[in-house]
């Protein structure tokens, strides 16, 4: 899976949340706040690390706080990628 579109990044994050926080993907709304899924600072940092590896960029962990929904985070990540 290459993460070159917002949709692909969204799907990657949804899969992570499903696995890490045990929430079924059908329950995950990309416009909901990440905090509402029970994302802790530890699971957030793990996600940042995984995304860094997949996208091959450095990501400031604060990006999650600045863009706290899956869709907003995905757009911000794509912007970073295209820079």
């Amino acid at each position: 899976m290459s993460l070159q579109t917002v949709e692909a990044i969204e799907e990657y994050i949804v899969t992570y949340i499903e696995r890490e926080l045990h929430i079924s993907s059908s329950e995950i709304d990309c416009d909901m706040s990440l905090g509402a899924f029970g994302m802790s600072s530890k699971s957030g940092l793990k996600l940042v690390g995984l995304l860094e590896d997949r996208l091959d960029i450095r990501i400031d962990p604060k990006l999650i706080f600045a863009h706290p929904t899956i869709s907003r985070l995905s757009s911000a990540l794509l912007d970073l990628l295209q820079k």
Partner: protein
Amino acid sequence: MFAKSEMTDFEIFSAAGSLPVQDVLAIRTWLTPDQLLFTFLDDDGEEAGHLTYRGLWLRCRAVAAELSASHPPGSRVILFYPPGLDFVAAFVGCLMARCIAVPVNLPVRRRVGRSVGIIEDCGATVALAPSDQIAEFKKSFEDTTASDLHWIVTDTLPLDEAADDLPFSRSVADMNAVAYLQYTSGSTSNPKGVMITFDNMTTNCRMIRDTLRLNEDSTMVFWQPHHHDMGLICSVLLPIVIGNHTVLMTPNTFVRQPMLWIQTISKYRAEVAGGPNFAFDIASERYSAAKLAGVDLSNWRLALNGSDIVRATTLDRFVERFEPHGFKPETFLVCYGMAEAVLFLSAGPVGRKPRYAIVDVESLELYGRVRSPSSQAQGRRLVGCGEPSWEVEAIIVDAETRRRLPDGEVGEIWINSPTVGLGYWENPDETERVFHGKLADNATKFYLRTGDLGFIHPDDRQIYVCGRIKDLIISEGRNLHPEDIEYSIVEALSAAGDSNAISCAAFNAQQGDEQLIVAVVELNRALKRNLAESGPDIENAVRRAVAADHGVTLHQLLFVPPTAMCKTTSGKVQRGLMRQLYAGGALKSLEGAEAIA
């Protein structure tokens, strides 16, 4: 003490093992002032800070001078620092001023309450913090009982470059005075601070040095938080004692990029690095061949694994992953210890592969005996947590009769060691219960009651830890480990469509003459939905699993929201508290889930 022109290597070795760490720092500053002691890495693994022996000495002196000017020896000083070198100077500075250091986690968001509880418990009137965060921390205590704390910034204190005058006498007259308080046990509402003396601290560092055969060439890499015992001892105090170079990273860097930890071990040719069991799991999970190109782990001599249950499968998987990079199975050093005895009690022998005991589950659960498995399905592989240090007496005791049990039988682990602390700060009842364990036939000797359940294997002298004693579940005369029942429940729930990290607490509850087995499960969204769809089926599957695995009836299964689940700061479920809440009628299952079954 320092009226000498030189010291032999023997003298230095024994001084480092018998003087408190601030005096050892004085000697090393005199011997090797410009040698690098600490390197601190930023989130990218780049060097972001350094301290030489003299550099640390000057900074500690500045902290001590500032503290001594306003606070008498014995004052409790609370330390709020992010990971980094400022903490080291602040902590050792407190020791120099003979103030009692109280290292805690940062007071942010929902942790403020816990900080306030600790400040109230220990009666601290002064807090130390770095200049760039002090305003934020101060603000978090507004409108709390801790709002009148006196704050001291330590990282901008002026250094007296002329402070090379080394002390001519020991800095501590009474080695049995309290050096610091370690708040790791106890709940948020009832914090318990272990009183660690200068002698406890000094002795434990010496025990680690000797058991692990550490010297000035033993470069170490650590990322453990300094408010936990492992981070405080291994990454702050031990380096000064052994006189090495130590590389520090933050816990966040590790969680985000576990491979950076592995790369750092290779880059600095570290001999010592480690963490709790989960660290090795995360590193295996995030293994990346691309990132590890050229990584050489052949210098890694000791991979410490302690402070949590050590799993054989974790060790296997890590070896499989990292053996191609030069990691050797005998590098694993499984350890046992606890904050009540500073940190370290047992490990090793070093340089040998971990020891395993394959025991019969039924025999272990039913009779508390260690036997070979009657069939393959009955076998469970336990990992040996090392031989006790020669300075430690570890015995296995029947907690009810307070009689010593023979090797190979399961009981409570009791410890007599010069590293056992004085007790819990201003808590005589808990101190008496935990620190003053006495055997039925010998009331003259005190033991620390660890609350851990385990055995000493007659074949290999290793301590094997099976669980916690006070959480034991008794059913029809059988002793069951709640971990085992919880494991079955979580497995059954996973099979019903949820995966592994569901928290669950299983315990006994008295009803009339009957001992019931109750399990409380933390509800998450997926579980909630599954229960709505097929609640009775799931509950039945759980009961079936518990019965099949352990031969006992699970009487009650409750589902509660995450907020109702009591956990320690490290995220472990507090069964004792959950049991109390249940007994007091304070636990209500959501959606009448238990009524269905």
